[in-house]
């Protein structure tokens, strides 16, 4: 962080508002922190409005309303209305659970731009199993209603070993539902997904097979449906350019008002992430320790420091380095140049063994009981 001059701080473009950690679903790959049940306070409607106003003034234009399940917040419509008045493009990222036609219309009138509905699988049985809740038929209904009321319809399916074999059916389902965009998000192994990795991480062959099917399909729907394919970084030899660079683009605000450079950052030690109830967004973005921590490249170790690809991937993901190499300054172990790259091979091997084992251990579902158990 030393030597990073303020003149090269770019303004935030994306505000990710995690409105609540409450959620009626229990996805075992949920990106919320394992100990979310400990952070159960929520900032007020007025706090959210102030955050939106301040971030917009700095240049944020895309707004993600997520959670948990954002529909749980009673003031969602009011927040959406405020966002529209400020000129945000607002994206509601929802499981669809509890979303009625009345609410869809109300949100549209308030100025919501887009609704992204997540579906866990292409069959009722598997969807309801993974979600830990009966929700499949309702989700399909919601997808229809979203489309009917003139929103661009974005379907999101998180891909892992339990559903990767359904790739062809998932694509057919997206087409039948009339999705304008399909996000095929290969699981990223943080939070709950990290805890369940042996049960979720597909084999390399499964990835390649699924990717082939998705690529072929992409061509047949060109011009009708856009497909975003979030790559599975465990099977790559370079890490992703995490968050497009630390503190360059994304600003996440957690339900309790803690400001995070990435949604997993509250798991990193000694970042002292600031709270919107204590400081303004501009102080958070420009001056806080957390947001300056991994800006630029002065913090890098070898092999990243002298690597000619560091402008491209910024050394990968800090949370992944911390989780897998035990050092948040280390090169992301996904990189084949990392001395810790072997942990990725071990993880893949361990997941393969778990897949072959006679009796797989059960998935740990994301709920408050498990959260408390795991974070003690």
């Amino acid at each position: 962080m030393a030597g990073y001059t303020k003149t090269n701080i770019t303004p935030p473009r994306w505000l990710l508002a995690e409105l609540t950690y409450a959620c009626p679903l229990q996805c075992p790959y949920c990106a919320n922190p394992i100990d979310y049940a400990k952070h159960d306070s929520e900032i007020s409607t007025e706090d959210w409005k102030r955050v939106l106003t301040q971030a917009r003034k700095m240049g944020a234009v895309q707004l993600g309303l997520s959670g948990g399940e954002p529909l749980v917040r009673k003031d969602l419509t009011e927040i959406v209305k405020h966002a529209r008045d400020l000129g945000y493009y607002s994206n509601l990222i929802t499981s669809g659970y509890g979303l009625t036609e009345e609410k869809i219309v109300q949100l549209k009138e308030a100025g919501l731009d887009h609704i992204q509905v997540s579906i866990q699988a292409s069959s009722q049985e598997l969807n309801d199993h993974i979600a830990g809740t009966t929700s499949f038929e309702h989700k399909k209904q919601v997808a229809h209603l979203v489309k009917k009321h003139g929103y661009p319809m974005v379907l999101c399916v998180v891909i892992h070993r339990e559903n990767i074999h359904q790739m062809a059916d998932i694509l057919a389902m997206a087409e039948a539902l009339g999705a304008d965009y399909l996000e095929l998000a290969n699981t990223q192994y943080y939070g709950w997904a990290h805890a369940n990795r042996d049960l979720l991480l597909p084999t390399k062959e499964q990835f390649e097979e699924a990717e082939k099917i998705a690529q072929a399909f992409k061509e047949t729907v060109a011009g009708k449906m856009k497909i975003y394919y979030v790559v599975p970084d465990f099977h790559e030899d370079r890490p992703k350019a995490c968050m497009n660079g630390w503190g360059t683009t994304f600003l996440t605000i957690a339900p309790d008002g803690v400001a995070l450079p990435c949604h997993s950052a509250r798991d990193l030690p000694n970042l002292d992430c600031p709270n919107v109830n204590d400081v303004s967004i501009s102080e958070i973005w420009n001056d806080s320790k957390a947001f300056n921590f991994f800006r630029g490249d002065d913090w890098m170790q070898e092999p990243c420091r002298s690597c000619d690809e560091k402008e491209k991937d910024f050394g990968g993901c800090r949370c992944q380095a911390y989780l897998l190499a035990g050092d948040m300054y280390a090169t992301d172990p996904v990189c084949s140049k990392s001395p810790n790259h072997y942990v990725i091979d071990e993880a893949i091997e361990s997941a393969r063994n778990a897949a072959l084992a006679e009796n797989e251990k059960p998935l740990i579902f994301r709920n408050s009981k498990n959260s408390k158990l795991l974070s003690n």
Partner: protein
Amino acid sequence: MTLNPDLPIQFSRTHRLQWEEAQQKNVILYPEGMVELNASSAEILKLCDGTRTITQIVSDLEEKFATQGLFNDINAFLEVALQNGWIHQN
């Protein structure tokens, strides 16, 4: 998909064209994404209001900027816009 010269052009209902003060630029916003526009692209898209064909857009802009010979540039840009789903016809 190519542009039909006889049909009016309409900016997409599921995208938003907007001036961004912080960037001093017009942008197109869509689900989870944004494209920054240069000044001339923005001028063209603002005329895609569902009443004008390409011929009318060209003549309006040639008049506004007191110039000639804009057809090829405008046509090329609108083809790209159509491929990207920013505009449609019918």
